[in-house]
């Protein structure tokens, strides 16, 4: 075991995956010599050469599109898009091709590739560096969307993603990159995709969350020792772990969904619809959503008015428990 932060855990996963399979290649802007703007790929070019850790020209559409071509031809590309806000320049390739190749060819051509990109805010940076676009990509169909909240899950989920057969969007919350360290096994291991993690069991209410908000929810609950909350970290956004969501909702009867992405048409809406469809008679309060407002992500001066925080979660818990 080693104590690793999320950057180190992802770096370690990439290292093991590249050692295991020489068809695994990394490509992206500044990922080689610079080691990535967050240093996630630090040291890998020295170890695996510039043939496998490829500094690309500044062009997102070709990073994604060329990765699709590499996957068609038998490589396992792991493209990095420097920030999720810049991924829209490759959006056509993701939505029109990465998501559709398998269904287009009736599974004749599949695209095992993992697109890594930092997401979410709270780190006081410029426009387009803080978006939480998981719902947009999940809505398309054909893309697996994963978002770890811990170093351990980051390593295990990335390993599963690269071992899998589907195009995966691997969303890495910037805020969590260096927020804390955790014991992570040194050898390769997998955390299954499509399985949520019940972080703590409880009876009073269920809090369904993921990404940056897992930490916020945990911190809030530390201030509520009397509340028996069940916390579900989704880990995979698409496909959702419906079984865990529904079971926990039935058990506590009160559900709150917490995410950083905007409220409307988001993951919370989907989770809420699933609970409504499968467990509405077994819950005894309206499903509550604690999220950012339905707005574009603001500039850093306003971001603290935008992202949900502990205090907001605490108030929502009080409100839900009163119902």
């Amino acid at each position: 075991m080693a104590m690793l932060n999320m950057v180190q855990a992802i770096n370690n996963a990439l290292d093991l995956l590249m050692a295991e399979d020489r068809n695994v290649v990394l490509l992206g802007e500044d990922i080689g010599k610079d080691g990535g703007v967050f240093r996630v790929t630090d040291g890998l070019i020295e170890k695996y050469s510039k043939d496998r850790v490829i500094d690309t020209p500044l062009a997102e559409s070709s990073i994604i599109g060329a990765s699709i071509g590499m996957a068609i031809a038998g490589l396992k590309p792991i493209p990095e898009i420097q920030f999720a806000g810049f991924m829209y320049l490759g959006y056509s390739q993701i939505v029109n091709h990465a998501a559709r190749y398998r269904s287009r060819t009736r599974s004749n051509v599949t695209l095992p590739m993992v697109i890594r990109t930092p997401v979410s805010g709270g780190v006081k940076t410029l426009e387009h560096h803080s978006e939480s676009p998981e719902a947009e990509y999940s809505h398309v169909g054909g893309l697996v969307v994963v978002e770890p909240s811990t170093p351990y899950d980051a390593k295990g989920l990335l390993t599963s993603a690269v071992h899998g057969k589907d195009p995966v969007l691997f969303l890495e919350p910037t805020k969590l990159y260096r927020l804390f360290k955790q014991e992570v096994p040194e050898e390769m291991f997998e955390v299954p995709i499509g399985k949520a993690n019940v972080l703590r069991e409880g009876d009073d209410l269920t809090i369904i969350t993921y990404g940056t908000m897992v930490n916020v929810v945990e911190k809030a609950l530390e201030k509520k020792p009397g509340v028996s909350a069940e916390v579900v970290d989704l880990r995979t956004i698409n496909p959702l772990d419906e079984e865990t969501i529904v079971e926990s909702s039935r058990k506590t009867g009160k559900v709150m969904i917490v995410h950083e992405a905007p409220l409307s048409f988001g993951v919370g809406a989907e989770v809420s619809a699933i609970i409504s469809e499968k467990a509405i008679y077994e819950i005894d309060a309206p499903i509550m959503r604690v999220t950012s407002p339905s707005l574009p992500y603001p500039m850093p001066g306003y971001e603290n008015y935008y992202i949900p925080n502990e205090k907001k979660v605490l108030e929502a818990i009080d409100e839900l428990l009163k119902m």
Partner: protein
Amino acid sequence: MLKDAFSATIKYMQIMDENGNIDQQLMPHDLDEKRLVEFYKMMNLARNLDAKALSLQRQGKLATYAPLVGEEATQIGSAMAMGEKDFAVPSFRQHGVYIARGLTLEQFFVYWRGYEEGASIDKKLNMTPVIVPVSTQMPHAAGIAFAKKYMKEDSAVVAYVGDGGTSEGDFYEAINFAGVFKVPLVVIIENNGWAISMPRSEQTAAATLAQKAIAAGIDSIQVDGNDVLAVYKATKDAIKSAKEGKPYVIECLTYRLGMHTTSDDPAKYREDAEVEAWKKRDPILRLGNYLRQKGLWDDSMESSMMDEQLRSIDQALEKAEQFKPNPDSIFENVYSFMSEALEEQMKNADYSNYWQ
């Protein structure tokens, strides 16, 4: 049969060499002594403002910042060649262009302290706000130029993109659009040698960036981007050409003396020796030496200029620091109307819940 289907050459222009010698044949006639001093002062103001912003960021008083140091001649030379009716479309490093075209220093600070109010630019100044996703402003520039032509306005659009930005599809699409519709567009490629960690030599196999214009069927030139006179003349000529229906690309060879942004550490990927070599080609020193040789500038003028500029920067900062953000503004500026969903969210937003 095999014959040449097409051939083209790219010219390189320098008017003032590194020792301050002038190529008199190329010297723009409209530049009198007063104007040269004005260029010098504006280039210094850009650098002084930049240094202040960098130090504020290091003190945690500014968000991430992209310094311009070293690129003053490209920015000021091109901005000074534009008329009031011409329209600037900068990217995210063109602070010199903004201030040369009249953006207040206070507003510069409001923007880089992290508030949209800094991006709400007086429409009379004819320029778009900072655009961060690389090259995505380029098609806008082509569209603005289309509208200027459509409305028969005597106006050209000058758009800025970096060396890395010329790899993006949006760059090619914009110049192709401009060529097809013969719109009054001038593209300034601010080639500062580095796209974060990627040197120009690895960004493209093309020998020059100016030659990318050839594929779009439009004219182009490469200039010494640290020679404010060459940048000025090239831009002035290009604006004239663009208004006559011939869009233009100008590649300015300059150098990013600083980091990509304050989040970047260039020591990781480039040699100090390269930076030191470019420091000797400093665009401000070059013009300053020339002005001194001509007897147009001296130490006392230098020190009073510096005092005055630093004072006005401090005053602007003081005002910018008094700016009070209005949290409701994030809800009120999303649509032309207030949706039910947003109205409810705004009503329920309790800003005291936040830590600011």
